[in-house]
């Protein structure tokens, strides 16, 4: 025991941190599978009705075949045990509505959402941080007030409504934005590597496709980003005000450094640490919150998939989505902590 303990502490901090977080994360995932499994069990309603045609659902033979195929004929604890056993082998079961392995479904829909959410995150970070910094510099003067109203409006506007309005205005009225979907109708997707079209197009050097994919992502990403822009602006402002009031910023100014350097290098850096945390949480929220935007822009992502799965009581798909969203949430938060430690040398992981 002591030996184990000793060798544990002998590991490098970073490794120890990652191992510990992964372990905790795995436990959390186990909890997630349990909760999602339990949820799908408590919900009244039989996947048979939801997934078979009317005629088929009243044919006992077909129903039996259906149940057998999805393992629904087994006792409930056994179903869960079987699920876990398959999970260990990376098998999330088969979706009842798409008749495909859930992993296949996820590998198709998840990248679309990640692409969208990442684009939104990048927008939110760039705009949010810039506005936040501006507001902090102009504290209590009119630019600050204006930015404040903008950012509060950002966190106040209902996304689903904004999606409709912007689509109407930019696509229909002005014709600036391209239509729905990830590519133009019938457009060839770039060779699939990550399944994120912008990245795949870049990897394949297909510039035209890249341009199209990018133009399609801008509007939904902007809509998705609005809320996060608002919150990041507020956080950046607060964090900047705090770091601007620090002695080390005064010291930097006293050294005669130009204002830009002082703000970007000295004041923004510590603020970034706080922002990264907020951004990490926002990313997690975006993943499961995309459904509203996805449906308006016909974005074939995980939000719509989750919504449909839940509608059809597609047990394995529901569990798969819950699990994968949780895994991403955990990984993102771990990444955030790593970035945090990278930004701030005082933080010692472990």
């Amino acid at each position: 025991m002591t030996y184990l303990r000793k060798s544990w502490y002998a590991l490098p901090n970073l490794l120890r941190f990652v191992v510990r977080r992964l372990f905790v994360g795995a436990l959390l995932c186990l909890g997630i599978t349990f909760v999602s499994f339990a949820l799908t069990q408590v919900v009244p309603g039989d996947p048979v009705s939801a997934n078979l045609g009317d005629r088929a659902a009243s044919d006992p033979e077909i129903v039996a075949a259906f149940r057998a195929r999805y393992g629904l004929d087994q006792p409930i604890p056994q179903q869960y045990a079987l699920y876990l056993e398959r999970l260990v082998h990376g098998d999330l079961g088969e979706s009842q509505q798409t008749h495909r392995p859930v992993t296949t479904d996820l590998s198709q829909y998840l990248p679309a959402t990640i692409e969208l959410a990442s684009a939104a995150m990048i927008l939110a970070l760039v705009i949010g941080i810039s506005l936040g910094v501006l507001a902090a510099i102009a504290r209590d003067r009119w630019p600050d007030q204006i930015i404040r109203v903008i950012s509060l409006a950002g966190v106040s506007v209902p996304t689903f409504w904004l999606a409709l309005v912007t689509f109407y205005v930019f696509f229909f009225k002005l014709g600036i934005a391209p239509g729905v979907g990830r590519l133009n109708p019938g457009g060839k997707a770039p060779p699939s590597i990550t399944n994120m079209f912008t990245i795949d197009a870049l990897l394949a050097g297909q510039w035209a496709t890249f341009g199209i994919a990018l133009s399609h992502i801008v509007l939904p990403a902007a809509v998705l980003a609005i809320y996060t822009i608002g919150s990041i602006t507020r956080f950046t402002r607060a964090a900047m005000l705090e770091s601007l009031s620090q002695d080390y910023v005064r010291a930097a100014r006293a050294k005669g450094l130009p204002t830009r350097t002082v703000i970007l290098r000295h004041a923004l850096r510590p603020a970034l640490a706080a922002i990264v945390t907020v951004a990490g949480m926002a990313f997690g929220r975006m993943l499961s919150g995309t459904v509203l935007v996805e449906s308006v822009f016909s974005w074939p992502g995980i939000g719509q998939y989750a919504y449909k799965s839940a509608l059809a009581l597609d047990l394995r798909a529901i569990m798969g989505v819950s699990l994968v969203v949780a895994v991403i949430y955990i990984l993102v938060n771990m990444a955030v902590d790593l970035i945090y430690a990278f930004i701030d040398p005082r933080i010692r992981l472990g």
Partner: protein
Amino acid sequence: MAERQPLLAIEGLTISLPTADGGRASAVRGVDLSIGEGEIVGLAGESGSGKTLSALAVLGLLPGGAKTGGMIHFAGRELSAADGRAQAELRGKDVAMVFQDPMTALHPMLSVGRQMTEHLVFHRKIGRAEADKIAIDMLERVRIPNPRAAMARFPHQFSGGMRQRIAIASALVTGPKLLIADEPTTALDVTVQAGILRLIEQLRRELKLSVLLITHDLGVMSALADRVYVMYAGRVVERGARAEVLARPRHPYTRGLLDALPHGSPSDHPLTALPGSPPAIGRFPAGCAFHPRCRFAEDICRADIPELRDVQPGRAIACPVDPLSAVPA
């Protein structure tokens, strides 16, 4: 001590700050101050008396919304205190500043080397390597062990005393003529403080540095300063050579401050506290701001703001009564 050619002269400096309710309050109310070349001048006073603000005004680093008046002469140049831009030229190059708390005055996320050289590179327009060399030299001068390795480390890896040395070194790499040290030892332990005081003295000698030493610790003042200014409620109440002011204070406030300090052996004098507490900014009493706490206050103290007047060569007090003129400490 002989008056030297003043390097910095502040004339009639006033500073007012916006208050929460939208008004303004005077924090510094007409300060004259001069520092000769190679001279260490101490600026003493209780918390809130305006010491830091006065120093920041020299660098044009006052908080947003502050309004200033008066003139600043530096090395023959004449700057209006109200025009922050002029002072900006001095910052880092001619005038450097060290802050009270070394724990917070160094950037926690930038390496020591980076912090030592960034302004050097900026001001002198030299390369990184050259800047590094200068910085390492300076670290050596302030007795940081193994300066080359220290450059790559981060502030939190140093103790408080070491950090203050690094902060001082960082302020001095550009070869400024004046160092403003705002309570450089308050946050440090006595044994460490001794080292820093010795270091400042040594640097003054070696680099022909002028130092404005801000402190409320009269002991530190006594160890280092050539001349002393004592501030109260935004005004200088007493000025003179260190030995004169500390050994024979003439302003009741200076005297009260000294009496409250435990020094000498316990039989020398009992600890006597000044009654009350220093007034907050915006609530300075009329007349001599010190009069409510002054044992000797007379009617005139309540009526007029006393001017700083010369009472001996190089010695001035702002007290119309001068009750201590004959009383030895």
